[in-house]
Every structure is written in C-alpha cells, then in structure tokens.
C-alpha cells in the first residue's frame, strides 16, 4: 500500500517473546504449547490464595542473553505488579518489570543498515488464554468465554523499540531480524504461528519535520503479513482523519486480518490506571558482573555477525545501506536465517566456491529438515564437480537432493545416476551437429544476438539427455563463432 505524499509514518514495536524454559516463570509447571487445557497448572500460576512466586533462574539467564544480543545494559531490576482485572490473568495483576527493567538502552541493526533503538527488554509473566463462544465467536458480542491457564505464568521478555521505524517494510525487517536473534540466543523459538512471539505496533503519522503525532497501539498481529497490512491500513486511517480535520485518539486497536482493518478495543473513558508498585513477594534481581560477563562470553555469533562473515567469504557486502538489496544478499540472509552458514563455511573450507555454496544452500537446502545432517565435505565435492564441468547444474541439484535423502559419496551417486560428464570430443561433435542443423541461428549468434545462445544450450541438453554442461556448450559455440 502506498502512503500519501507529504506524510511520514512513525512506528515503535513491542515484541513479546516466550522464553524457551522447561518451566514457567514463577512455578514448576511445564512451559509447553498445545497441552490439554488446564493440565499445566498449580496454585502459583492459578493465582490461588496463599501461593507465592519463586523466580526461574533459567528465565533470567535467557533474558540476559537476549539483552546482551540486543546490546542492552543489564542492571539491577525489580519486579512490579501491574494491577488490572481480566479473567485470563489469575491474580488480577501481572508481575512485570516497570521502572527498573533488567535490560535497557540497546539497539538492533536491520540488514539494510538502519539502527533501531531498543528502549528496554524486560521480564514478565504471560496470561492464560480465553476462547469465546456464542455470538460471533469474537470477544465482542460473545455469550461467554472459557479460560485455560496453561499459558499463565509462562516467562516472557517484552522488547520495546524506540519510535525509529518509518515504514511497514522496515517493521517487517525488524521483526524478522528480532526473530533470528531470539532463536540464535536459544532464549526463544520465535514462532509467531504458535504465539510464542507476538508483536504490537505503535503507529503514528506526522508531516515531515513535525513533532510525533498521537499514536495508536495495534494488537492481534499474528504474522509478518498482518504486521505490514495493519501498519499501512492504520497509517492511512490516521492520515485520512487528519486531512479531514479530525484528531487521532490515543487508544488500543484490534487488527482484523479478515476485514483488513483496525477497530477500537476499549472505550476511551475507561482510562487505565495500573497502580504499579514493587512486587513484595519477590526480591530484587541483581546479576553480578561475573554473571553478565559469563552470559556474554557464552553467546553464539548473532545473525548480523554471521552475515558479515559470509559476506566476507563471498566478497559480497552484507550490509548495503540503500534500500535495494542485492539478490545475492538475500541468499546470505536466507542462509543465516536457516542456520546453514556454518555448513556453507565448512564447505568453503573444504574447497567449495563461496558464492556457489551460498546460492546452492539458499536454493537447495532451505526447508529441508535434513540439511543439518549434510556432510560439508560431500556438499563441497558436489559444488567442485559442478565447477569443473563434470556435473551440470541440474545434475548437481539432483545429487544434493540424494545426499539430503540418503547421504553417501557424491561421486558414486553421480556415477550411479549415469551422470558422467560428456567427454569434450563428444560434446564438440554434438555442437558441430547442431551448427550444421541450424545454420541461420548460428549466423545470428555470430552477429552477436545473445538470445540464440540459449537456443543452442537447450537443444544440446535435449540431444544429450541433460548430460551436456550448459557452460561448456556456450564456451564451444562462442569459440566456433569466433567470439572469444
């Protein structure tokens, strides 16, 4: 969607990431997705009278990893109670961090080079889940709700960005990059489809150079597609209002993917007053400098650094600051996102060409659950055979497919498939035959028409049953045409 000329969008994102702990934040119930309703509950996460929270150390460790990966300062922090009544929040307050969050003042670099500030990344507990029955099945107009507290008390990190994002595409890139970082830290699985990563967007618009406009918080963004559509819709809604002389009301709005629009979630006279105060059932969290250093030292390389490494190996620049990203950089992004970079670098170390390795990995290995098991040496061998002209591109892909399925020796696989590369003399005979059969086309090739090259390669493939190497055919043709 296009934003009207003369307007700027300002977006800040709140990402809620469930932490990948075995248990909940304050009790020993399993932190599991998809269990039978109300089976992972105890007095603590049901908020039963008399129960008390005890903090999960692993959740703190994960929160610190995430904070470190986002270049945050890790400080002494205090849990507070955020008081409001809601049936899926069992204590009718949420234990969260308010004025003293564990992580603050960090940043995230987008692949396109823009730096987005991270205001804070604090710890808090998740709520239960309610489903609505009767009426329309939605929250408004339903006859009632059923509440499942399995998710209640699951540890979350809420990551709040500064209002630094200026387009829906940047917002999308931010969320994608955040997901990669979260996964890389091991702190969260980043699955938007299971709700373990959820995004709320604060959207406002303004005339260039003017102060920030009134923002609306958009909820229920369950996919990157929703995020992009909702931001564009909301920005245009606000622009239309302002151009009509109306004022934007600060409020929370619900995105409907079906309707493609946002709508107000609560009436404005219901001003929120959360009455935050320090949670007296918990003591402050004060990680020692040694612990902070240990977390930093134990952190694996982040996607940004891994992309840099690949870019260096291939000679591509990973971080182009202009918005148009080179297609090759997309391959780098994909390889890192899919966790294939270690395999690629190992294959390069084993003698594979770096660019070919990145492209083949991005195109042939993504989405395969077995890619992690691929032997880098075997992968490198396939790529080298292709480089040497002993395998065509099609054959190389087929061998990679076979390696993924069953493993084995690439040379033996190629042989078993009858992929002996055509002898140069055989290939030359084939090319000569083709020239004789298509003299007019050969004349056009000689005259410099590049499209005819493809015709001859296609014909050579057909005649050889796919065994001809397209590159070798092109080279022979060019030399016979006196072009090289």
């Amino acid at each position: 969607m296009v934003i009207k000329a003369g307007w700027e969008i300002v977006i800040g994102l709140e990402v809620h990431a469930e932490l990948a702990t075995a248990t909940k934040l304050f009790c020993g119930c399993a932190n599991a997705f998809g269990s039978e309703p109300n089976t992972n509950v105890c007095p603590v996460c049901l908020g039963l009278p008399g129960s008390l929270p005890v903090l999960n150390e692993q959740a703190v460790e994960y929160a610190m990893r995430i904070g470190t990966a986002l270049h945050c300062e890790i400080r002494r922090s205090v849990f507070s109670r955020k008081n409001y009544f809601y049936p899926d929040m069992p204590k009718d307050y949420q234990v969260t961090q308010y004025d003293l969050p564990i992580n603050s003042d960090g940043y995230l670099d987008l692949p396109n080079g823009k730096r987005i500030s991270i205001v804070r990344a604090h710890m808090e507990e998740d709520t239960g889940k309610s489903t609505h029955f009767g009426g329309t099945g939605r929250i408004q107009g339903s006859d009632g709700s059923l509440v499942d507290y399995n998710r209640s008390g699951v540890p979350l990190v809420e990551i709040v960005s500064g209002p630094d994002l200026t387009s829906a595409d940047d917002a999308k890139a931010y969320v994608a990059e955040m997901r990669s970082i979260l996964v890389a830290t091991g702190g969260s699985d980043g699955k938007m489809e299971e709700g373990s990563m959820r995004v709320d967007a604060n959207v406002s618009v303004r005339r260039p150079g003017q102060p920030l406009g009134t923002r609306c918080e958009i909820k229920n963004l369950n996919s990157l597609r929703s995020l992009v559509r909702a931001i564009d819709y909301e920005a245009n809604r606000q622009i239309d209002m302002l151009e009509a002389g109306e004022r934007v009301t600060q409020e929370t709005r619900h995105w409907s993917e079906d309707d493609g629009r946002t709508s107000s979630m609560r009436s404005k006279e219901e001003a929120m007053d959360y009455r935050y105060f320090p949670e007296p059932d918990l003591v402050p969290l004060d990680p020692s400098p040694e612990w902070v250093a240990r977390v930093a030292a134990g952190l694996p390389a982040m996607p940004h650094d891994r992309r840099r490494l690949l870019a260096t190996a291939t000679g591509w620049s990973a971080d182009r600051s202009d918005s148009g990203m080179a297609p090759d950089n997309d391959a780098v992004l994909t390889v890192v996102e899919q966790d294939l970079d270690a395999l690629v670098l190992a294959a390069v170390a084993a003698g594979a060409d770096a660019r070919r390795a990145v492209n083949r990995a991005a195109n042939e290995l993504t989405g395969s659950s077995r890619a992690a098991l691929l032997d880098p040496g075997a992968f490198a061998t396939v790529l080298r055979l292709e480089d040497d002209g002993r395998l065509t591109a099609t054959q190389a892909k087929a061998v990679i497919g076979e390696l993924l399925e069953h493993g084995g020796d690439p040379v033996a696989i190629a042989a078993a498939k009858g992929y002996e590369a055509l002898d140069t003399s055989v290939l030359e005979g084939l090319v000569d035959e083709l020239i004789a059969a298509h003299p007019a086309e050969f004349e056009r090739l000689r005259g410099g028409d590049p499209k005819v090259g493809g015709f001859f390669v296609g014909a050579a493939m057909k005649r050889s049953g796919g065994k001809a190497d397209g590159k070798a055919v092109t080279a022979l043709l060019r030399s016979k045409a006196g072009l090289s």
Partner: protein
Amino acid sequence: MSEPAARGLTRDDVVHVAKLARLALTDAEIDRYTADLAGILGHAEDVASLDTEGVEPTAHPLPLVNVFRADVVRPSLDREEVLACAPSSDQHQFRVPSILGIA
C-alpha cells in the same frame, strides 16, 4: 510540598476508585467511604506532608537479592481437583460471562 487541600478526596474520586477496585458499591457505601477515607487520609497527612528529601523508600524489610528456583518441572495439580473449585466450568476450562475488552 503540596497543601493538604490539594489532596482533598471527593465523592467522584471514590466512585472512580470503586471502579478501579471492581467493587459494585451502593450510594450509601460511597458516602460512607468518602467520609471514612477522608478521615484516614487526614490522619495520614503526617506522613504525606513529611519532608523526606533524600530518603530512600523501603519496599521490603529484607536485604535479599537473587532468590531463584531451578528450571525443573514439578507435578502440576490434578485438573479435576482444580476445576472442582470453579464456580462454573465447561470443557475442562473455567467458564466466565462475556468479556468486553480490557477495562
């Protein structure tokens, strides 16, 4: 330091607080609590108007930090026992009247 009058509690404040506290109070209760709270807060003026420049707040009497539990799963409650406490349940879940957004 603000004047005590600036903190004068009105009946409207009490109506608002009752809403925040999710208490459906009668008019008589609102009147009564307006008077009671004014009295108690009047007494608390010794604390409210005290000069506490430079004094750190104490949220907690203990000087403890970093109290943790290990990330080890412990048995959850029996679902039937949990739902036996519920005023209303259905399909192994707690049943409530309709929710009108967050308020």
